[in-house]
């Protein structure tokens, strides 16, 4: 490079006002390679996925949950026993080759019941998260997008609901409605969506003032389009994290309600109901009846929590290295 410039200097007539054209020749070897895109461009989601993939603990949680989901579907069919089939001859059998997780005090197969319980517990958790998502996103979205007086009024209502003690309201509702699968989900979501609404509203308030939203508006986009195309995709990160953390909360709440006798009722059996039924085994030594449901509640909550933490890190562009 140096030789090139000194060379051209020799030809210059110091009195000329013209700049010689060969000064403007591109440098040797400096083609446009610096401007070509070598790697494929990464979307937000691809980028998040790559970061999540390198987080082994979170991936462990995800894999556990996928396996759990598969077992919840096929698990009950792997044994010849049904969920509620009792057998007086086989009460409290320890785990063996015939009863893989043992049997309970009515001779029911714990292995079958564990996966059946997984269905119920996961169903309660996922439904609660989905309902919270739907109500929370609509409520928070409208509140944040409208702003002003509407926002003020809607947030006052949220503030009051937020102040109500969550589990006490749930208990009260279930005492009145009577516990069943649908009333439990209903009770868990009556005030459960408030957290989601607050998160969505905060995000929308922030994002609606960004330039790309103004640009979209000035191109004449309708409100519905702005919400669908501009606001929602950009709030999805925190929403997904919140949903991941709602599922274990709901699973725990259902188990907690089972302990108060307000869990899902016969013939259904959730992990919480199984654990509560097995409480008496502390003294009798039939540990398997308590161990399996308790283990799967804890492991599932653990998996959802670490996955939620991992997603939180992966979906936050500010934490990008």
């Amino acid at each position: 490079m140096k030789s090139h410039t000194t060379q051209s200097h020799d030809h210059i007539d110091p009195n000329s006002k013209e700049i010689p054209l060969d000064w403007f020749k591109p440098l040797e070897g400096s083609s446009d390679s610096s401007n070509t895109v070598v790697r494929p461009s990464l979307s937000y989601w691809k980028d998040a996925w790559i970061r999540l993939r390198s987080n082994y603990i979170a991936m462990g949680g995800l894999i556990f949950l996928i396996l759990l989901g598969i077992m919840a579907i096929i698990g009950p069919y792997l044994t010849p026993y049904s969920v509620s089939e009792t057998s007086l001859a086989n009460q409290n059998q320890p785990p063996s080759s015939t009863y893989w997780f043992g049997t309970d005090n009515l001779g029911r197969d714990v292995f079958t019941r564990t996966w059946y319980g997984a269905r119920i517990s996961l169903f309660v958790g996922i439904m609660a998260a989905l309902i919270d998502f739907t109500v929370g996103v609509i409520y928070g979205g409208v509140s944040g997008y409208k702003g002003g007086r509407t926002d003020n009024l809607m947030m006052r209502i949220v503030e009051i609901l937020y102040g109500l003690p969550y589990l006490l309201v749930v208990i009260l509702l279930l005492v009145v409605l009577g516990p069943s699968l649908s009333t439990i989900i209903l009770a868990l979501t009556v005030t459960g969506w408030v957290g989601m609404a607050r998160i969505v509203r905060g995000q929308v308030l922030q994002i609606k003032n960004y330039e790309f939203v103004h640009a979209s508006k000035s191109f004449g986009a309708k409100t519905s389009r702005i919400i669908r195309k501009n606001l929602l995709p950009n709030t999805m990160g925190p929403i997904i994290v919140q949903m991941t953390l709602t599922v274990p909360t709901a699973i725990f709440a259902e188990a907690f309600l089972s302990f108060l006798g307000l869990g899902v009722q016969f013939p259904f059996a959730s992990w919480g109901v199984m654990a509560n039924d097995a409480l008496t085994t502390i003294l009798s030594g039939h540990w398997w009846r308590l161990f399996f449901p308790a283990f799967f509640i804890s492991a599932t909550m653990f998996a959802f929590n670490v996955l939620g933490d991992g997603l939180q890190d992966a979906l936050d562009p500010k934490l990008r290295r």
Partner: protein
Amino acid sequence: MIRYILKRFFMMILTIWIIATLTFVLMNAIPGSPFNEERTSNEAVQENLERHFNLDEPPIVQYFIYLKSIATLDFGPSIKKPNDTVNDLLARGFPISAELGIIAILVALVSGIILGVLAALRHNGIIDYLAMMIAVLGISIPNFVLATLLIQQLAVNAGFFPVATWQSPMHMILPTLALATGPMAIIARLTRSSMLEVLTQDYIKMARAKGLAPYKVVIKHALKNALMPVVTIMGTLLAGILTGTFVIEKIFAIPGMGKYFVESINQRDYPVIMGTTVFYSAFLVFALFLVDIAYGLLDPRIKLHKEEGN
């Protein structure tokens, strides 16, 4: 500040009123009303109910009488226990529950903060990973699982502790541990993350540069500020501890308020459910109110009256 306190106070009264009204409406919505004669076991009970709820009056009058009784902290009779009122049960059970709850919350605070600070000071070290592993496990393992595990291992198998009830300090260790672990884990995580943030601030560098002893920097300068987020979640933690006592008292057969509450749910003793719910809610809402005010007093950077709407 005064305006803020007044506003919070008004919100608190409003919340308690909503809970009380909700309770009243829900209980009256039960098919065949819990106060019907078929539901009650004997005449003394029916008389108690009549006297307290004035069942011969129209519902709206009943409602105002009910509100008045709550305002005067009279929570009504029990259906299943003819000789007891909700107030009797509260007087008997609440001190025990309060004892359990206060010990648990102190244990959770102290151990959670220590764990969080250690983790932050040894960021990405072995202590950090260990502490956070304990924290995630503490959040994931439900308190009833932990409680049964503790009873089975330390009381039944090893025989170190008594299995149940609430008599000597030895009886208190297992229930307290079972109740405190969850909140401890939450406090530890929160303390760690806010400590990590505070430790990068300029005034910490300044304090270090002045040559202050490391423990003084940590305790006087860093921890004081790092604990603010912990104060904000005290209300939530308290609610968790309170509902936790229902399960823990049931498992350990502790004769506290939580046990009576669970009993009343199982026996569908509606006046007790009503009274206890309102009492618990009022207690929690009041605690939240105190936490909010404490937060305002502790952190001079926050101008409380500007906080609204956020």
